């Protein structure tokens, strides 16, 4: 209950802003933009990997917000509703670029392919080598469905029940897609960004043997 007491004032002012924006109040809409712009833009940027595209998509998301805000009935938190709208804008954009992409309504389980399990040894672990640039490249290479769940959960900090609402999938699906996304990222990073510093010997007491 103490958490609710703390959250109530912020939620109260946002609700007032939404109500005013629904009646065309420019100031209220501008305030909503300020409150949510970073999260929406970050989402667009992580999904596209391109600042110009991300800014275009952010604009489109907020313009759609303005057009659709009168349909917001408060069934979910406003931020969840807005981010669902933004996710749809992003996925529509990606679908136009590569037509055979996933459906907008569900994280498509047909993306499921066997995930490679490369059992390295201690010297081959990623610890210390996951820098921002490497990770950004790896994320850009993920299939859109995996990418969206990973970005929403591990980067943007959404919880699975929020992702389920945004992505119209079950929480179980969200968890499963996240796990697969992480394994795919791990594989990409190990293969593309160098597993070991060149010249270092393999130090292992469990050397691979022939099958």
């Amino acid at each position, binding site marked *: *209950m*103490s*958490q609710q007491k703390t959250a109530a004032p912020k939620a109260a002012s946002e609700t007032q802003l939404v109500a005013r924006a629904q009646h065309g109040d420019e100031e209220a809409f501008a305030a909503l933009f300020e409150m949510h712009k970073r999260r929406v833009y970050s989402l667009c940027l992580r999904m596209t990997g391109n600042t110009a595209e991300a800014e275009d998509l952010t604009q489109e998301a907020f313009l759609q917000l303005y057009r659709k805000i009168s349909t917001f009935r408060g069934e979910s938190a406003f931020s969840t509703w807005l981010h669902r709208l933004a996710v749809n804008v992003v996925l529509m954009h990606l679908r136009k670029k590569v037509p055979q992409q996933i459906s907008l309504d569900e994280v498509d389980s047909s993306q499921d392919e066997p995930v490679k399990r490369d059992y390295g040894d201690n010297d081959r672990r990623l610890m210390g080598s996951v820098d921002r640039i490497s990770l950004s490249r790896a994320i850009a290479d993920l299939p859109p469905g995996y990418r969206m769940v990973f970005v929403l959960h591990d980067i943007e900090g959404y*919880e*699975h*029940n929020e992702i*389920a609402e945004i992505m119209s999938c*079950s*929480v*179980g699906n969200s968890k499963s897609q996240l796990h697969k996304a992480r394994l795919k990222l791990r594989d990409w990073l190990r293969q593309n960004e160098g597993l070991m510093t060149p010249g270092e010997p393999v130090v292992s007491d469990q050397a691979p043997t022939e099958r």
Partner: protein
Amino acid sequence: MPDQSKQTEKKRGVTLYGQGLVVYLFLLSGALLAADGARSEKTFEATPNPRVTVTNMTGQILVRGWDKAQVRVVYSVVSPHVEVDTEVIPPNQPADKIHLITHLLDPLISGKDQTADYSLEVPMGTNLEIWNPQGSVRIEKLQGDDASVESVGGAILVSDFTGHLFLRSVGGNIELIRPSGRVEAYSITGDLHFVSPTTSKLRATTTSGRIFFEGDFPDGGDYSLSAYSGDMDILCPPSASFELNAKTVRGKLVNEMPMTIRRRSATPVSSANSLFGTHLTGKATVNLKSFSGTIRIRQR
């Protein structure tokens, strides 16, 4: 030839019958499997004072405190179209927050098919938040900072709880046994039953339900009970030391405790039946109100 064609027909009939039987048995086993409830158990490492929330539609929820730094959840669902989502924050460390949410995969299922039953064992210092509109809730042995339980038609039973307790059921009965700390209990048509409370503050209101109170009033306690039209029965020991402020608009006031009366009136101006008195040294404050219900104060 006609015999052969008859035999062929017969064979075809048997084959069709056999296929039909297989399909029927398959569907029947599927139905039986679907009807069989699915039971799951999960255990999470937790901090000593986690916040655990349970959001359900209907079914029984039982929560017990234990002395482990773990939250153990056993749940079962009736329908395969109902799943329980669990969320642990932060993951992979002792949990500060655990959310348990009953999730309907098919929005068209209704009634008993929505049932999910939960049994939780949680650290004693857990803060709890439960929403179970059509189901019952039972809480035993918790000492968290606060617990909040809301229902619409379900009954709520809490025993041996210490902390701030907020209970609301629109139509369900609320029963508290040996609560300690601060209590708020609200119902519209449900009964409120208190046994041996040692709370410093207690607020309870019901509109058409009844109130039963059995126990002492601890020193310094502040108790306010209101039953609009239902009867109120207070049963306390001879050693209870309290200051009483009781009033009703049209109901009756029946007092069997020896009291030093401060004021007793049925003034024509207000038509209120009221009793203001002190039992022993008046160390606790007891406010009792009704509109048309009878207020009875009796000695145990």
